[in-house]
């Protein structure tokens, strides 16, 4: 999948989007992306991992996700990519939620210009994806 200028939001970004109070960096990134017409994409496995961490407290994520023409496009797990995602996770040696999430991101974004927006860049060490560390420099 090659989507120029698109931003792929991982679960750490989604959790920050829901919880950050100050600075509201994840929210500011989303707002800037929307106003400049960038595509925001969210892997289904990232939503699962974020949902597990947020424990049912995700009103703002739900608000932006529940509109089918809203600003975020969910990347489904389907016949096209689910088997490959499972295979990728098995190769990585772990089958927890985050490992499945990273596996789907690698399947979707490896070798492409799509940036993975994350507060947990160490998750992607050794993966051939473009990572943007959201942690303060």
């Amino acid at each position, binding site marked *: *999948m090659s*989507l120029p200028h698109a931003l792929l939001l991982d679960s750490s970004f989604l959790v920050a989007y829901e919880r950050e109070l100050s600075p509201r*960096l994840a929210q500011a990134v*989303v*707002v800037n992306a*929307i106003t400049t017409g960038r595509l925001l994409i969210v892997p289904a496995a990232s939503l699962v991992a974020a949902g597990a961490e947020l424990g049912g407290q995700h009103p703002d994520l739900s608000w932006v996700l529940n509109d089918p*023409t809203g600003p975020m496009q969910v990347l489904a797990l389907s016949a*096209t990519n689910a088997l490959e995602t499972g295979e990728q996770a098995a190769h990585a040696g772990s089958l927890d939620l985050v490992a499945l999430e990273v596996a789907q991101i690698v399947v979707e974004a490896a070798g492409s*210009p799509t940036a993975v927006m994350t507060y947990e860049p160490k998750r992607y060490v050794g993966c051939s994806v*473009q990572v943007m560390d959201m942690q303060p420099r």
Partner: protein
Amino acid sequence: MTASAFADRSPADQYLVQRIAARDQVDIESLAALPAHELDRLLPGGRAAYENRKQVAAALLARRGIDPDAPDYQAADAQARDILSRVDQLGAGHAA
């Protein structure tokens, strides 16, 4: 289909092409030559959402009770712009 077919489309068409490609898990090249009305058929409401994106962003901020002119949000906004600039540099490096 060449990559320039995508680049030659309007910003709204490019947004629709990318969104449909992500949803349907197909290459953007397979969609870039479709006429605009076909893109609209494939993603009803998508063009209006793109054209109203500033209102969507404003609604998102209002929902969170965020004053876009507040100093703390202005600081976050500046940092966000810097991050997106670095994202573009990553993309340029990828293309090079």
